């Protein structure tokens, strides 16, 4: 191919940094002039220019529009990123989150002027408690990992309130990295538990690790292999029998909403990723929200604030002295991810009790369809049925010269976002596919046909094309080693 003169390739436009488009004097806003005053800066005015580029509004619009075109999202492609639940993000939720009565309210307005907002938080909490069957909830965690941290803090406080010292947390080897990181941030030590050949927690190994110093088990269910822990009641009984608590990582809760109540599994505490299960957008990395449901035993330790309701209306409890409980304090500024609550509640109300149950069924059906249709060409790690995601490993690529990474990159050229790669760690070269319930059978069939074709190409000596992939993207494979060895983390003006 002859390179283009401009460096652009049709709809793919090369776009410099904003700093490289500086037009001194240009500005994308028209502000009134500041009235003349004697400043009250106490001699602390900034000296010298900041170095921000000047850009008119059209330049800014074109810049970010072009950047957006170098991205894919759920809006544009099938995005079966396992464990991440890339489901459709309804625009109704965005519209409602922008109502002035919900977006343009301040966290410290008098509470009589935000009764609708407090009712919204309370209603969102009610839906989450009812769906999970859990009696209490902490709404303030900002994300899944923050919910883990919140839950572990309540466990730590509850253990201390019993006059005990328990410092060890059991975490399966297949767990998300946030689990051990959250445990460490809460001052616990982490003890790994192996998996069985069936991809589940090894109950005997778990029992052998229990002891008077174990504070909790952190278990993802459905687990990160996409399987339901079928011995979960025995697991819960074992941890409770040893005086520990059962933390459930709710990252995969979307598989069972409306079909299984978490409370019926013996769970003491679970965070819920509203940005996964309840359809709020991932936004290229966030924001999310991680409300955390709690058992009666852990509820008194929930962090502040909390919304309560009495004949005076809705009220925020913001201080321990008002709470009548033993809160672990405050873990997030203000009242939690309110804008995310608006979107999640809009989704829950749109779907309803019946729709949420159907969504779980369809998510599981779609994943099992992938598992069934791809098992002959790929190597399924475990026997089905799976839950909301299907796990394969790289045995089908053995001796092909193609790695899991190469396979994923080839999928990009075919117009699909890759599945999660190399996670969970318990199988070799993992490919974890989560289709979600918002994909049609037609999309799945096209994906299946493509994956099968690629698997055959890999097995038929096509390694070279995999190694080169992707070629139809704004950038081809990027050199991550150099990026880490000599970090360039910001733009700097060229030396003059």
């Amino acid at each position, binding site marked *: 191919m002859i390179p283009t003169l401009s460096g652009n390739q049709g709809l793919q436009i090369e776009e410099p940094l904003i700093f490289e488009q500086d037009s001194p004097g240009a*500005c994308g*806003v028209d*502000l009134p002039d500041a009235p003349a*005053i004697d400043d*009250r*800066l*106490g001699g602390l005015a900034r000296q010298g220019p*900041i170095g921000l*580029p000047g*850009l008119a509004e059209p330049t800014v*619009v074109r810049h970010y*529009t072009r950047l957006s075109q170098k991205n894919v999202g759920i809006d544009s492609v099938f*995005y079966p990123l396992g464990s991440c639940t*890339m489901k459709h993000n309804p625009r109704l939720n*965005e*519209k409602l*989150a922008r109502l002035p009565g*919900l977006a343009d*309210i301040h*966290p*410290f*307005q008098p509470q009589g002027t*935000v009764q*609708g907002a407090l009712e919204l938080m309370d209603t969102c909490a009610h839906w989450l408690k*009812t769906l999970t069957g859990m009696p209490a909830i902490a709404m303030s965690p*900002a994300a899944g990992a923050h919910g883990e941290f919140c839950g572990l803090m309540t466990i730590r406080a509850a253990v201390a309130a019993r006059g005990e010292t328990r410092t060890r947390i059991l975490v399966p080897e297949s767990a998300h990295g946030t689990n051990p990181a959250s445990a460490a*941030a*809460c*001052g616990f030590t*982490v003890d790994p538990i192996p998996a069985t050949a069936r991809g589940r927690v090894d109950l005997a190994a778990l029992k052998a690790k229990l002891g008077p110093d174990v504070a909790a088990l952190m278990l993802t269910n459905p687990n990160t292999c996409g399987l339901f822990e*079928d011995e979960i*009641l025995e697991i819960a009984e074992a941890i409770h029998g040893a005086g520990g608590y059962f933390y459930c990582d709710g990252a995969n809760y979307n598989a069972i909403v409306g079909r*299984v109540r978490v409370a019926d599994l013996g769970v003491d505490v679970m965070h819920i990723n509203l940005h996964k299960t309840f*359809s709020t957008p991932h*936004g*290229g*990395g966030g*924001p999310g929200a991680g409300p955390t449901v709690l058992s009666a035993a852990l509820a008194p330790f929930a962090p502040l604030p909390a919304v309560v309701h009495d004949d005076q209306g809705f009220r925020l409890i913001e201080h321990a002295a008002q709470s009548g409980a033993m809160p672990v304090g*405050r873990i*997030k500024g*203000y009242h939690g991810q309110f*804008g995310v609550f*608006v979107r999640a509640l809009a989704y829950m*109300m*749109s*779907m*309803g009790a019946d*729709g949420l149950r*159907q969504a779980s069924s369809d998510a*599981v*059906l779609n994943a099992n*369809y992938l*598992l069934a249709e791809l098992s002959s060409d790929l190597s399924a790690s475990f026997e089905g*049925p799976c839950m909301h995601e299907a796990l394969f490993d790289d045995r089908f690529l053995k001796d092909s010269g193609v790695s899991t990474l190469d396979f994923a990159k080839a999928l*990009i050229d075919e117009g699909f976002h890759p599945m999660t790669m190399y996670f969970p760690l318990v199988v070799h070269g993992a490919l974890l596919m989560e289709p979600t319930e918002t994909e049609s059978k037609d999309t799945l069939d096209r994906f299946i046909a493509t994956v099968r074709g690629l698997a055959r190409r890999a097995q038929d000596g096509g390694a070279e094309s995999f190694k080169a992939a992707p070629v139809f993207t*704004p950038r081809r494979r*990027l050199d991550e080693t150099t*990026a*880490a060895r000599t970090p360039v*983390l910001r733009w700097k003006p060229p030396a003059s």
Partner: protein
Amino acid sequence: MRYLPLTGADRQAMLAAIGASSADDLFRDVPVAARRDAPVDLPFHAGEMEVEARFAALAARNMAAGSVPFFLGAGAYRHHVPATVDALIQRGEFLTSYTPYQPEVSQGTLQYLFEFQTQVALITGMEVANASLYDAATACAEAAAMAARVTRRKKVLLSGDLHPHYRSVAASTLQFTDIAVEALDPDPLGLEDLLGRVDSQTACVIVQNPGFFGRLKDLTALAEECHAVGALLVVAVAEPVSLGLVAPPGAMGADIVVAEGQALGNALNFGGPGLGLFATREKYLRQMPGRLVGQTVDADGRRGWVLTLSTREQHIRREKATSNICTNSGLCALAFSIHLSLLGEEGFTGLARLNHARAVTLADKLARLPGVKLLPQSFFNEFALLLPKDAAQVVDALAAKHILGGVPVSRFYPSYPELAEVLLVTATETTSEADMDAFAAALREVLQ
């Protein structure tokens, strides 16, 4: 059900392909005792019109800031957000993408985060910044933990002029670690002496500028004192617009800057989501929490961007990670970055001058009222007033007159009776002269 594409016929065909008799059959690994045969006790699905009506009713029971004269701040600021910001962040390629793990199809997210990191470093006067944390309060806790790692010390000192939520989040977050947090009493009068409290055990001191009570401080001497004993100075900024006019923490010797980015590009949203900004010196890079985007080249030698230094992070390092954070505030960072791009040097400094001028005008109007005392001598766009009456009661009386007249400090410190009459008041570019006059007149009435 509008979000579910599968038809009944699809489901039957798929079950047949799987070899399952029913959807229930796919859930056969769930213990029988835990299966539920019917939907839970919640309303059934609803169309857009019904849901909109329900939310409109909730929204109507809130007093929107833009509908009345409005003077609240205390860490959450109401600025005018250009229409361009919201139009651009709602592009599906930004809104509906995940964390940019696949760089070849995420250059858009990666490039704007690289630009965001640069903007944050420039306005704070620091060398490097990360791709965002949840909010300034959690960023304070992360900064304290990072300072403890850097210095291998275990004592953290929190100023009484630090936002009370930043203080409580830092203290709560670190309570089960071996780091000891000492929080000084709230300091409305600017009397606290931090210089005398830093010693060879101190990992860091965390101060805020402008302070929670509005005061602007020269932190240079404190930075020197910290460095002389091997401690770090962490500076929190609650109002990033101040950085358009006030000397940045980096110029005063800060080692870590944490800030709340909400004020640029983002609505109030009742306080969340926020946007935690986090910047530091290059030498502390490997102890930093959060994601970082770095520049590199692709297989054809073209410039591109990737997530980098991820060996600090939980998905690689697990319990030895610098933080447990995974999800951050990516889309809020985009809004911040677009707003700052629109502003540029001229707009950002002009916006800051306008905010300061409005606040000075308002402070003069209010301080003329009988019995009202302006507490800080120097401030940016927010200041504490000492009233002759209980500030919470004053604010309620003003709200009854449809004026949202500031934040009573007792909301944060109910157990400090000496703060009951302190009110925090903010003016921004959205505050009109008429708003100020209405506020001054109403406050005069309420105080009589």
